[in-house]
C-alpha cells in the first residue's frame, strides 16, 4: 500500500522498470508471432503442394477418351424378345471395322479393335436395352476407348518415341490421328469414374463401389462407436467412482488408442470372422473393426470434453434438484458435445483413411459389383487407392490421384460438417 512513497524515495519507479523491459517483451512477442505465422504458412504450403501435385496428376482422370461409332442396330442380330442372347460384341466390331474399310488383314483387324475398350460392348448393350424402339435405325454412340488410346490422347504416351517403345504402334497411332481429324475421338466427362465399381480396365474403373463401401463401413463405425464411446466416457467421467479399477480402465483405453491399427484387424479376424462367423470382406465387419479402433479416440476426447465443463454448471443443475442423469443429459453433455464431436470426427477421419486392419478381414480385394448392403463384399476408398497404385497399367496412375482427390473431398466435407454441427450446437446453448 505504501509502495508509492517507497518508490519516490529510491527513485526507481515501477514504470521505469516496465519501460526498460518493454522492448524485450515486445520483441519476444513478435518473435513468437513470427514463428506461429511461419508454421501456418509452412503447413499451408505443404497442403497446397499436396493438392496441386495430386490434382495435377489426377484431374485428367475426370475426362475419358471416347470414340464415336455409327452403329446400325441390325434387326437380324437384335431380336427384341431375346436381347440378352444377342451378339452385341459382333455388332460393335462390325461397326468399328466399317469406319476403316481398308483394314482387311486379321491381325490388323485385331490391332484395330484393341483401340476400343471392352466397355464398348456393355455400353451398346445398355443402350439397346434402354431403347428397344431404336432397333432398325442407325445410331451414333460414344463408346470408351482403350486405356492406351486414352493415355496417348491425354499426352501420357509420347507419339514421337520410336515404335518399339510405345504400347501403340505406328499404324494404330495413324488410325487414332485419323479419328481425331474426323472428330470421332474426343475427351468427354468421365461419368464411369463416378458410377462404376472397380475394374481391371482403367477406362471402366470407377470409384462408386469403394465410395459405397466406405459409406457403409463408416456408417457402422459411427452408429457403434459414437453411442458406445459417449456412454463409456460419460460413465467413466460422471458416474464411476475413482478407484484403482477405473485407473486400470483408463490406462487401458489410452493404450488402445495407441495400438497400431493392424492389431484391430487381427482381433476382428479372430472374433468377428472366425468366432462369430460374420461374412468376410463385408462392410459390417469392417465397420466393427474400425469402431474398435475409433472407440478409444472418442472415449478419450469425450472424457476431456466432459472434464472441461465447469463444475459450477453441474452444481447449478444439482442445486435446482436435477438428478445426476438429468444433469449430464441436459447440461454437461450438450456443453461437451462440440468437443466430443471433434473427437468423433477425428476418429472417423482416421477410420476413413485406414487400410491396414481391413487387410486382415478381407476388404483389400478386387470387387466389381457395387455393394448393396452391409453384408455384401466391399472395399473402401483408401483400399481402392492402394489397389490402383499397385496396378501395372499406366492409366491407373491418374485414377489413383483422382481417387485421392475424392477421398480428400470426403474429408473436407466431413470436417465441414463437424464445424457446422459445432457452430449449431454453440448457438443453441
Amino acid at each position, binding site marked *: 500500500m505504501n509502495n508509492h512513497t517507497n518508490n519516490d524515495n529510491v527513485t526507481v519507479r515501477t514504470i521505469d522498470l516496465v519501460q526498460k523491459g518493454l522492448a524485450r517483451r515486445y520483441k519476444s512477442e513478435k518473435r513468437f508471432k513470427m514463428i506461429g505465422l511461419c508454421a501456418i504458412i509452412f503447413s499451408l504450403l505443404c497442403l497446397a503442394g499436396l493438392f496441386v501435385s495430386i490434382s495435377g496428376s489426377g484431374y485428367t482422370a475426370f475426362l475419358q477418351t471416347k470414340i464415336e461409332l455409327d452403329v446400325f442396330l441390325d434387326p437380324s442380330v437384335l431380336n427384341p424378345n431375346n436381347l440378352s442372347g444377342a451378339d452385341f460384341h459382333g455388332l460393335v466390331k462390325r461397326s468399328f471395322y466399317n469406319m476403316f474399310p481398308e483394314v482387311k488383314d486379321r491381325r490388323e483387324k485385331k490391332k484395330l479393335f*484393341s483401340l476400343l475398350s471392352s466397355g464398348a460392348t456393355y455400353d451398346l448393350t445398355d443402350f439397346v436395352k434402354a431403347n428397344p424402339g431404336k432397333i432398325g435405325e442407325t445410331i451414333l454412340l460414344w463408346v470408351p476407348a482403350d486405356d492406351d488410346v486414352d493415355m496417348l490422347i491425354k499426352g501420357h504416351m509420347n507419339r514421337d518415341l520410336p515404335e518399339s*517403345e510405345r504400347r501403340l504402334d505406328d499404324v494404330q497411332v495413324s488410325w487414332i490421328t485419323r479419328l481425331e481429324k474426323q472428330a470421332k475421338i474426343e475427351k468427354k466427362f468421365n461419368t464411369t469414374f463416378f458410377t462404376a465399381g472397380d475394374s481391371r480396365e482403367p477406362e471402366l474403373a470407377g470409384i462408386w463401389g469403394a465410395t459405397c463401401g466406405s459409406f457403409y463401413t463408416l456408417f457402422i463405425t459411427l452408429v*457403434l462407436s459414437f453411442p458406445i464411446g459417449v456412454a463409456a466416457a460419460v460413465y467413466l467421467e460422471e458416474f464411476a467412482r475413482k478407484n484403482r479399477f477405473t485407473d486400470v480402465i483408463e490406462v487401458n483405453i489410452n493404450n488402445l488408442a495407441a495400438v497400431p491399427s493392424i492389431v484391430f484387424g487381427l482381433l476382428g479376424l479372430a472374433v468377428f470372422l472366425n468366432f462369430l462367423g460374420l461374412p468376410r470382406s463385408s462392410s459390417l465387419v469392417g465397420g466393427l473393426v474400425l469402431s474398435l479402433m475409433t472407440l478409444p479416440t472418442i472415449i478419450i476426447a469425450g472424457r476431456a470434453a466432459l472434464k472441461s465443463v465447469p463444475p459450477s454448471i453441474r452444481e447449478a443443475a444439482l442445486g435446482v434438484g436435477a438428478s445426476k442423469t438429468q444433469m449430464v443429459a441436459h447440461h454437461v453433455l450438450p456443453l461437451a458435445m462440440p468437443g466430443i464431436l471433434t473427437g468423433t470426427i477425428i476418429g472417423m477421419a482416421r477410420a476413413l483413411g485406414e487400410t491396414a486392419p481391413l487387410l486382415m478381414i*478381407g476388404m483389400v480385394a478386387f470387387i*466389381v459389383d457395387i455393394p448393396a448392403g452391409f453384408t455384401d463384399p466391399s472395399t473402401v476408398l483408401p483400399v481402392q487407392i492402394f489397389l490402383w*497404385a499397385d496396378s*501395372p497399367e499406366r492409366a491407373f496412375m491418374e485414377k489413383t490421384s483422382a481417387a485421392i482427390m475424392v477421398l480428400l473431398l470426403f474429408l473436407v466435407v466431413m470436417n465441414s460438417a463437424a464445424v457446422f454441427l459445432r457452430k449449431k450446437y454453440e448457438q443453441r446453448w
Partner: protein
Amino acid sequence: MKKVLLNVWVLVFIMGVGYVHAKSRDYISIVGSSTVYPFATVVAETFGKTTKFKTPKIESTGSGGGHKLFGSGVGVQYPDITNSSRRIKKSEVEKAAANGINEIVEVKIGYDGIVIANSKKAALMDLSVKDLFLALAASVPNPDGTPTVVPNPYKTWKSINAKLPEIAVEVLGPPPTSGTRDAFVELVMDEGGKKFDFINAMEKTDKKQFKTICRTIREDGAYIEAGENDNLIVQKLEANPNALGIFGFSFLDQNIDKIQGSSIDGVQPVFEAIANGSYPVSRPLLFYVKKAHVDQIPGIREFLKEFTSEKAWGSEGYLTDKGLIPMSADERKKYYDIANNLIPLNPSDL
C-alpha cells in the same frame, strides 16, 4: 423417446448379426497370390459382366496366405479358390486334408517372367544368373578360387564380370514376403550358386548350408527392398539410371517406353522367350479349387470355363494383353480337361 431409439438400435443390430449369420454366399471368393491377381481379376470381371452370376471377390493375400485361408476348412466362410505363383506344398495339402478338404483341383494358367530391368536412359545389361548371384548374395565364393565363402566384396558390376559396365551394384527388389522374391531366389540365386562346383555339391551333402548361401540376400545396401509396389520400382528406376529393378513381366510390358529388361544368360525377356521357356527366370502361375464348394457356391464351374477358355488364356487371349505368358496348346488342353472335369490333385504327385 431416447430409450426407444436405443432399444431399436440394439434390436436392429442383434437382428442384423443373426440374419447375416444365416445367410449363404452367392459369389465366388478367391484369395491368393498377388502375381496371379491381375489375371484372375480380369477373368472375374469378364465373368461377372457376361454371365448372370455375381462378380467373384478376389483378395490379394500372397500365395502362402492364400493357401492358409484356403486350407482352413469347408464352408461359406472359407474361400473357394486360391491363386498361387508356386505349386501347393505337401504340408499345405496335408493341413487342408486335416480340415476336411480332400479334393483340390489344380489348374495351371500360364507363366510369369521375372525381369531384371533398368531405365532406357542407361545401356542394356547382359547378365547371367552367375553374375546376379555374385552381385546379390550375402556371401559369395572367395574370389581367390578357394572353395570357401566370404562376405560379398563386389561393389561394381565390372568387378563381377569384366564385360559389365563400371557402375555400382544397386538393385531394387521385392521384400521377403513377396512371391516374386521367392521365385527370384529359387530361379536365379540357386541356379547362380550351382555354377560353383563346391556349392553345387553342397546341395546334396548339406542342403541347409546350400540354402543359407544361395538364399541370403546381401544387406549392405546394394540390394534395396522397395516394397511390394512394383510401380514404385519402375518410377525409381526412371529416376536412377544406374539402378536395376526386379519385378514381374507385366510391369515391363506396361512400361516399355521407360524401362528395358536385361537379357539373362543371353535371352531377352520378351513374350516369346518366356513362353517357350528359353528365358530362364519364369515360373508357373496356378490356382486351386476346392471341389467340395463346386455346386454349393453358384458359378464355380462357369468361372473355370471362362478362365480356361481360349479367349482368356489362349495365345491371343485377353490375359496375354495383361502380360500373362500362355502355356503351350498341349498344356492348355491338359489343364482345360482337369478344370472342366474337376479332376482332383493327387497328393503323391507333389
